[in-house]
């Protein structure tokens, strides 16, 4: 499915609605360039999962986890990584597939080898179409 959003708020709301369909255990691979709107999407997702804390960029620490009312969120950023194996080293994989947790990986294209054979994998792509217009492609749940 493809959706076009024309504001940050719409992207946020779209992700929030998407979160309503999640059951827990999903691993979301998020694709998109710098400034595509990935962080906004993750914040919407977090709101949908009932996360109260502020969701900040995990680029520096690579992984941040949040407790949510509906489900917990494990937010990973592969931007600074050179290989997928590095995510295993910091214990990120421990959260993947956990029934009470949704994992989301920004810059998933940097760690393709790690996504092979992952159960409940959902791939979402965000493209910036110019100005405030964005195309978000995701599978139906």
């Amino acid at each position, binding site marked *: 499915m493809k959706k076009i959003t024309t504001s940050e708020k719409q992207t946020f709301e779209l992700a929030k609605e998407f979160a309503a369909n999640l059951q827990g255990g999903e691993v979301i691979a998020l694709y998109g360039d710098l400034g595509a709107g990935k962080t906004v999407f993750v914040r919407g997702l977090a709101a949908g999962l009932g996360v109260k804390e502020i969701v900040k960029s995990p680029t520096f620490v690579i992984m941040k986890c949040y407790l949510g009312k509906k489900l917990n969120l494990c937010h990973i950023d592969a931007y600074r990584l050179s290989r997928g*194996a590095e995510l295993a*080293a910091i214990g990120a994989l421990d959260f993947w597939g956990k029934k009470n947790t949704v994992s989301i990986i920004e810059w998933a294209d940097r760690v393709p080898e790690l996504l092979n054979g992952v159960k409940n994998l959902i791939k979402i792509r965000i493209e910036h179409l110019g100005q405030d217009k964005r195309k978000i492609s995701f599978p139906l749940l």
Partner: protein
Amino acid sequence: MLILGIETSCDETAAALVQIENGRFCVKSNVVLSQVKIHARYGGVVPEVAARKHLETIIPIIKQALGRISPKDIDAIATTTGPGLITSLLVGIETARGLAFAWGKPFITVNHLDGHIIANLLNCRLQIADCRLPALALVVSGGHTELILMKDFGKYKIIGETLDDAVGEAFDKVAKILGLGYPGGHAVARMAEQFNLECRIQNAEYKLNSAICNLQSAFSLPRPMLNSPDFNFSFSGLKTAVLYLVQKLSDDERKKLTPTICAEFQNAAAEVLVKKTIAAAKKFKVKNIFLAGGVAANCHLRESLGQAIHDNLIGIGYFVPELKYTGDNAAMIAAAGYFKYLKKDFADLEKLDAKPNWRIDEHC
């Protein structure tokens, strides 16, 4: 009183000895080994490589920091236990735990950001007891952007923080957008300084704005949350605004305008940081303002915050760390540990653990 500090929270392996003499922090040794070049080869940080490198170098670095000092002369070991990369933190913690056990010394857990704040007092002429409180700290680095109210040393409250990217991270990402490499925050700052310098020279020579300086007004970047009533920040949108701008330019134009864009980006980021810091200082009636963290090395930010304090506030002190203590180091960790030493706030060697997401307002 002599404290050994150990710091391995990210890409730097560091050990230092700090003595408390006449009520001042006196740095006896400060050894820092940066892994930045190692990680640049991989085009990003590699947590496992970072941890291994810490492991290889930590003992020689501690030995070097100790020099001729015997372990029996040390009063305590202060170590960063968070926030940071868990694999990196663990190397420092486990090493310190071993030393504390073998030497029979107390182990003090230190929050990395607390260390950055206390870096302001290293080799400072002022006695620690004369530093008036409450104070406000603006902590800016690659991973953090926080306004912290210090009611006392070790007693902190986060009154504002970034809602998305840290300011140092925005510098790095703008560098990437402009093709200056990653991490390239320093390159952006250098380009901006160069632009500002050229402007000043040209203005002085011709007594009028040169063409290149006028370009700056040709585009202005947003100042996100500049007028929001809280003390929070947002830098993700500023980075995206740079991206939109660059997308409209040809390669040639981009190259030509890169210094101008860097200068305008730096102005925008600093303006928000400075304005919110001044507003918070007024609201909480603080007596001193501390600038802290890796981005505290940024000349423009150091100057513009100093100028704004001078122009807007009366009788408020302004602390900036010496440049060599803006980056990660262990002297700041040893010094921050001193305040916990005074309260005999020591960690249980059997229970202590890494806290990768330790917020400075939580006690650990």
